[in-house]
């Protein structure tokens, strides 16, 4: 085995807490059972780490797959948290980890799907054509082979984002529409609606570009209204679904606010901005909303506009402070892929100023982590 990347070592340490409560179990065909930590698979060998004594360093064992009867993984919240915090800089670590856990994907409770999902998101954030294609391939694999419905749904969310990033708009539209026909989970339904909203938003902006004086043209007005209604329906549905993930709800509301602003409909834009400040206080989305509210003329203002506050930060296990709020890399890539010369409104949810960096410099994605 090649020498481990330092970050991978950290992650593996977290993945291997050596506590009985969250230890993995390997049952061999000869009936032996070993408790420890499954550290992945290399070719036909399972990597298994055990700690002989609390004071001693862990020892890595290798079990040929042919000897293994059963694997049982235990949930490891610390590892989940570390995965959640992984940023673009951790891509290579995640890639190595994914390669090791990929063969174990179909095992119940294995962390493979979680690793794959996070790695996929990081690939999307890398914003190169190849990495986006890789992300799409990865999410497609996860959407089929992940052991739980929630993980498969999350992978479908990833597919939709990847398709948008790659500019495969027709495929994205078809997939999102198909998903919505099948009573999906709330996060997936929200993502599908957001995908359709993004596409409709793009079409709407293109329409406005081509018909800057649509008000004077009775033949353009129906198309304007159709597109306008469709975007807002999609954005608002994504935000209003019960249990819509907050990250997606914020993106959706920002999108709806952007559409209203684009159409110079300031009162409804202000209404949504007020929602954002109240529903999602201390987030970058609420900051944008507050800044918008403060820019409004006095006649549109009322007293419930909060002062602009910095997003609440939370300490991470590694001592870094990262913004807890939604993140934005995927979003940008989606927009960039969509149109190269579009005239996005200043507050469009997809515009680059939504990209946030934590103090440590790690980029976060506004699309939020996949569940």
């Amino acid at each position, binding site marked *: 085995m090649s020498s481990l990347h330092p970050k991978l070592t950290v992650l593996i340490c977290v993945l291997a807490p050596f506590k009985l409560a969250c230890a993995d179990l390997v049952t061999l065909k000869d009936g032996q059972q070993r408790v420890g930590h499954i550290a992945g698979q290399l070719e036909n060998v399972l990597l298994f780490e055990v700690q002989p004594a609390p004071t001693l360093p862990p020892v890595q064992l290798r079990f040929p797959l042919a000897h293994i009867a059963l694997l049982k993984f235990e949930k490891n919240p610390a590892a989940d948290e570390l995965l959640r915090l992984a940023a673009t800089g951790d891509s290579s670590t995640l890639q190595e980890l994914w390669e090791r856990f990929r063969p174990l994907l179909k095992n119940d409770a294995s962390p493979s799907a979680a690793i794959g999902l996070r790695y996929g998101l990081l690939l999307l954030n890398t914003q190169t054509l190849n990495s986006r294609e890789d992300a799409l391939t990865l999410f497609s694999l996860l959407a089929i082979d992940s052991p739980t419905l929630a993980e498969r749904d999350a992978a479908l969310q990833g597919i939709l984002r990847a398709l948008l990033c790659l500019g495969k708009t027709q495929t994205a539209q078809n997939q999102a529409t198909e998903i919505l026909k099948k009573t999906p989970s709330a996060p997936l339904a929200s993502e599908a609606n957001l995908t359709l909203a993004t596409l409709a938003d793009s079409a709407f902006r293109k329409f406005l570009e081509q018909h800057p004086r649509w008000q004077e043209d009775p033949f353009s007005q129906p198309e304007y209204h159709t597109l306008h*209604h469709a975007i807002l329906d999609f954005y608002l549905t994504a935000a209003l679904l019960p249990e819509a993930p907050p990250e997606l709800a914020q993106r959706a509301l920002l999108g709806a606010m952007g559409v209203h602003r684009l159409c110079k409909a300031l009162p409804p834009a202000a209404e949504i901005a007020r929602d954002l400040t109240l529903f999602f206080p201390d987030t970058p989305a609420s900051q944008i909303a507050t800044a918008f509210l403060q820019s409004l003329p006095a006649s549109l203002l009322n007293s419930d506009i909060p002062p602009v506050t910095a997003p609440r930060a939370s300490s991470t296990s590694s001592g870094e402070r990262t913004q807890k709020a939604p993140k934005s890399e995927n979003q940008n890539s989606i927009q960039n892929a969509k149109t190269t010369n579009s005239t996005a409104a200043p507050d469009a949810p997809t515009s680059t100023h939504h990209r946030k960096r934590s103090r440590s410099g790690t980029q976060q994605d506004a699309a939020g982590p996949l569940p």
Partner: protein
Amino acid sequence: MMCHPRSPMTAWCSAVVFIVLFPTKAIAAPKQTLQTPLHPLALPANNTPTPFTNLTAEDLLRLANRSLAAGNSADASNAFLCFLKDFEDRQETALLVRKFRPSLAISLMRLGRFAEAHQQLEKAIATRPAYPEPLQGELLFQNGICAMQLNLFAEARNIFLSAMPPLVERLQLGANLPPRAQQIHLLIASCLFHEATPKEAAAHLSRVRHLLDSENQTRAAALQFRALIAGESFEQALQLFQSDATRLTDSRYLLTTQTLLLKLGDGLLERGLNRQALAALRQIRPFEKLLQFQDSVLAARSAQVKSQETQRQPERLGSVEVTSADADAHVELEAFRVLKNFDLSVRLRQVAAYQALQRHQEAALVLEQALEGCSQSPLLDGAIISLAQCWGELERWEKVLSLASRFLQNTPQNATQNPTQNPTQNPTQNVKQRSALTYFKGLAEQKMGLYVESLRTLDSLSQVRPQQEFELRAEFSAAFTQLLADHPADAAARFRLYLNRHPKHATAEDASRWFCVALGFDKQHAACRAAADDYVVHFPEGEVRPVVLLQKARSTSALKLQAQAEAELNAWLVNFPQHELKGEAALMLGDLLSARNATDAALVSLAKIPSTQSRPFDEGFFKAAKLLQQSQQLPQLYAHLLRFPDQRPESPRLAEAVLWAAKVAESPESGAPNHAAHDLPFDILRRHGDNPVAEGVEGIFDPMAKQASTPELRTALLHRLTLAHKESSQSGKMCLTRRLLWAIGRAQLATNPTAGQAALLNAADKAPPDSTSPRLLADFADALAMASRPNEAKLCWLDLIKWHPAAAQKDSAFAFLAASAAAAGDKNSGLGWITRFEKECGASAQSGSILLTKAHIQEASGDPKEARKTLEALLKERAVPAEFKADALLLLADSHMHSRDPHTAIPYYQRVYVMYARWPERVAKAYLRSGEAFEALGNVPAARRTYQEMLASSLPRIAEAQTHLDSLEGLE
């Protein structure tokens, strides 16, 4: 609007939030409520203590000790009580009593005999010397618990307070309180809550929360949240939830919190804090998920308890509460499980909040989601109507129509008459719902212009229950639909009937107004006047009184009651001086006065038209000018016309006023300065020509060019334009410069096409399409096409469509773009432009060009039949210029030739050279093709005659005819 959803849920919510939940073993369970069962370990009422009559004092204490050790509280307490009965007051056993009384109290507590326990604890606490700490404190604490169980909350709180000081004294700065002190604080807050002082409970918790450890902070948050809601401090409750969401959604408090959130949402809604209500309601999770989650939590807890039971440890104080808390959680869960329409209730509250915020789209989307996710429920009835209302508010009539049609189709009328088919629905409610949706369907059809369908729908409803709200509104709407459908007589008849039936209804005023309008439209002027009088009598403060009175004046005028009409209009102008119809009224009065030659009065009236009301102002202005001209008041006329450019610089009639003024200035009687006639147009150009919106100035140039009928005048005009162009160019007036260059180009096109073309191309360069008028852009595009710059011409036409979508030149743009696409072989694009032309342009001089292009495309697509149909259609169009018809005939003939049908082709060719001699190129082509057709038929004599006929003319392509003729030599 939808009523505020106060369902049985609210009552349940109120009940369940009073379930006291401290489901942990760390603190004792407080008061049991009606919702919770009796303490599980409490003895039944008839379970009297076992008598131990034969035992000695020593035996009794031994038994009590043994039972206590074995966890048999019943025997232990009975033994203690028997002992006390005999020996409590004896001096010699005082020490023993002192020693065992606390154990007795605890045993009694475990049995749920709190009154007895309380008594024993009181005695123990009163014992002197007092028990050493920490036992004394523990006794006080347990005594407080007993008092709480006996609903003696004030007493319990005092007991807890008395237990507090020694505990608090041990607190170090910055540290959490000791565990027992934390519990006491929570219990004090609980007592305050139960003493009906929830605000104080919340305030107490707010003061001490920072001194609690994490676990107790969670409990405190749950209690504080409940207390804030009970104390109706809803905004603080929301703030608490937002800052402590993680604690409050802890699995042990989840259901309570969720139901409290519903209550919180209600409270905020009632206070009109709609957005805050939404913030609370959106935190409520779906019913099924809550049940699943709570089931799994309780199952896990039960498993944990079972595993603990297998390794049973001696009972400790408080262990009874674990079971009690679990029981409470189970009770709460079961109470929650039987709830109906939980999700729908939440969603309907959200809808109410969004509607109150006038956010109908959100309300509609939430309702749609709710309707998708819910089965039959009485609440749904109102929800469907609300949904239709929301879509109606948004003017999304297609949604209203689809919703109403779907509902009416899925709920046949007889279903409403036979409630046994769906017992969950109230038949009366069903009829009402059906009526409402039928009404909305009719309304949607009306708004979508489907008047026949709308009438059918509305009429089907208005007969059902004529005095009911929706039926009544349907009757009104049907009358209005007739008015929209341009059937004013029918509309008037319906409104008359409506007013007779429902003179007091809220819609009567509107009906009265539209009745008057309908009569006016139907030219029933006398009736219209009477209807207007009725309106004024019945609605003296009616909002649309000015509209009705103006309609009356119109009818008066139509009845030729001039004096009466003048009086009515004068009164109108006095009474409604600021009304938006003032211009129309003043114009009408001006017309009446000028008709009876009261010129001065007419001029006064026309001068009252505000320039902000553009249509009546322009009309009135030129009528006034005409009056001044008729009365030969030339100085006044000149001055009047001069005012127009300043008052209405954006008017399309600006050039008309300027040129008229220039013409008047030519007359010495006008009093205009010398050279005013020549200078005025250029003065106006200088003042308004650089304003892109003042497109009217462009109309000045063509008449000036036409007036310059001699070469000298043309040269002079050109010189003047060139000077003006130079001046504007030097002063940086880009728009004016462009307009003047365009004018120079146009002025030269006839006499010096090359120079004219160059000027136009020069003007076209860098012309911003958004602020260049379509008239100029069209000329630029033509010039570019003429200059063999088709791509730039195409861009120019595209810009014209983009920036001037209502321009009259749009037909030329479509014609060019279609022809251009067809020439490039882009059939789809070509057909696309043709479709837009057909849709957007109607009758147009470009129809011929468009149809020819369409036929070309159809022919090229291998569909000659369709191409011929198109060409035949072109030939039937009267408006199509003859040139295009000649081309159409040629194309038709060619098409038949391609189909090897020269016999049919020949008459088409012949029609060209018979009817369209003005276009010799086309005639020559027709002769030649006709001859070829005869040749193809083998009719050499006819072919020879055709070529000879052509040779006898002065047509072009004579040489070709001669060649053909030569080739026929010797043939028969």
